[in-house]
């Protein structure tokens, strides 16, 4: 495995915006819905090149989701996007009935997810979005770890004929995957091999975990790192394998600890191979204003928290 280094800082949301334009050029049926946050979620790029296929619905997320469903019924390929909470919690029942239950392949793409959205504060920090979306049958839930993976994911949605929710972020963050890094929905990506413990991370916590692994490696701890970019359907095989081979699991996410990635992994382990686990996640609290990095530290989802969690779970690991 090549060493994972940050080649540049680039926003995941930009990967979304750029790829939308590419897909728009390739497929005239691609349409994009705008909810008055176009510049933030970077659908401005698409809107500029394809004004006729950009449909503004105003600040009305419920309407947006169902309008997208209607466009799909008419044979279009709709992308609906907003900030994390307003793309999921606000129109939850709409997504549930008109997209998930109806099994309409709308692509719900949210930017500004998690606590790292920063200064906007709690109302804008979606910390429940993955959890609530993964509860919906028929729904796929995925979250890229960097700009390049975002591009791959957005492209992959074109042949993924299911309702899907993709979660990405505001900040410019390290780009450390490359064109060859695999991205298949539902298949965890082993970024680092290891045998003492497995860190299962998603989103921006993948990079935090890479940093943590470096530190732990120096202490002689061999960490396996999985990028669990697809929260649903979750890669049960990879989890069971990790539990069998490493005997201890840490999950890491920018999300509430209840119900999210950690919850999903705990559920799999409980019914297959019960294994000591530690959760790196926001601990049942709302966020607040601050810088993204500051908040990651204050709310316990940064590199150091992964390091601590690994040490803790190793103590619990059976001889």
């Amino acid at each position, binding site marked *: 495995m090549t060493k994972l280094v940050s080649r540049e800082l680039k926003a995941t949301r930009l990967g979304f915006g750029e790829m939308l334009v590419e897909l728009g050029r390739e497929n005239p049926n691609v*349409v994009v819905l705008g909810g008055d946050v176009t510049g933030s979620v970077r659908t401005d790029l698409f809107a500029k090149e394809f004004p*006729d*296929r950009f*449909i*503004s*619905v*105003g600040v*009305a997320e*419920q*309407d947006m*989701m*169902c*309008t*997208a*469903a*209607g*466009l*799909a*019924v*008419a*044979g*279009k390929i*709709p992308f609906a996007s907003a900030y994390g909470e307003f793309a999921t919690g606000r129109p939850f*029942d*709409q997504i*549930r*009935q*008109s997209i998930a*239950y*109806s*099994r*309409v392949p709308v692509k719900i793409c949210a930017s500004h997810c998690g606590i790292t959205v920063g200064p906007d504060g709690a109302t804008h920090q979606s910390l429940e979005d993955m959890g609530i979306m993964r509860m919906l049958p028929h729904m796929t839930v995925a979250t890229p770890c960097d700009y390049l993976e975002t591009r791959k994911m957005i492209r992959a949605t074109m042949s993924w004929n299911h309702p899907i929710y993709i979660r990405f972020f505001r900040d410019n963050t390290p780009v450390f995957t490359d064109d060859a890094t695999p991205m298949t929905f539902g298949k965890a990506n082993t970024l680092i091999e290891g045998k003492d413990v497995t860190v299962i991370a998603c989103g921006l916590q993948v990079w935090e975990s890479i940093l943590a692994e470096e530190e732990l490696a120096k202490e002689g701890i061999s960490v396996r790192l999985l990028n669990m970019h697809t929260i649903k359907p979750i890669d049960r095989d990879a989890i069971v394998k990790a539990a069998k081979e490493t005997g201890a699991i840490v999950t890491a996410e920018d999300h509430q600890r209840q119900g999210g990635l950690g919850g999903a992994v705990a559920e799999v382990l409980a019914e297959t191979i019960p294994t000591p686990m530690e959760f790196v996640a926001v601990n049942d609290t709302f966020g607040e204003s601050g810088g993204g990095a500051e908040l990651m530290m204050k709310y316990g989802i940064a590199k150091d928290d992964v390091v601590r969690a690994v040490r803790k779970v190793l103590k619990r690991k059976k001889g």
Partner: protein
Amino acid sequence: MMPDNNPSQPSLTVRELPEMARQIRRDLMKMLLLSKSGHSGGPLGLSDIFASLYFHIMKVDPARPTMPERDYFFLSAGHLCPVWYATLARRGFLPIEELSTLRKINTRLQGHPAPAYTHGVPGIEIASGALGQGLSIAVGCAIGLRLDKKPNRVFCLMGDGELDEGQIWEAAMTAGHHKVDNLIGIVDRNFCQIDNRTDKVMELEPLPEKWAAFGWHVLECDGNDIEQFIETVGQAKALKGKPTVIIAKTFMGKGVSFMEDNYKWHGMPPNEEQAKQALSELPPTKFGDFIEFEWEKASIVAEVKA
């Protein structure tokens, strides 16, 4: 019923529609008696509109429920589905015998509409049941068709109580903003919802002014008068530059004396006695019932004997 060779032709003349509407009402009473749960009032009130839409107005082909030239119909107020199922069955989208499975386990006739491509009925494009979502869907569909420069029309039927949901007004605004004039909204203005009459639960008037202020052409008609309704849809089709809403005044429970205009029948099925009474007020038609109950046979025998 045979699939149409030319789906743009009405399959019944205006003169034949009242009888079909009556048959649908008979079907409803029998379906609901069998299901022992479900909504009587709204569906009875809408039988004239459904008969008109599916047998005269809309371009549909039961043999090709997803044919590209079809008109799209969205039932936003999903609880009204019994009248949709009965109409679809009568129009040939499903066997009429299946009407006896309403709300039973493993049925396609779910308590609220399931889309055809999960386990629902052909001709049903998408799920409904949670109120307030259908108009947005219809607007999206209409915009999608317009993008492709297709001539298909989109119809969306809403309950009046349903208009309490803010999402309806989001969709109304979106349709007005985008001047979606291949869309016709129909409001079932029966002045009833679950808890009470609409003005007691949540005042909707002045309703035409609301729609007009959201950028719509507004037409009103008697939704239990088939000719008037068809004429009004004709007018709606001719209106351009904005979406059009038809506020169709109906009576909840229309056709069954003891249910008429009574909100208490919003969500109740008739019991056997009530069904008998209802059916006696809705004489049999040339189209024939989908089921004959024992007591009907008995009563025919009785009549013959008398």
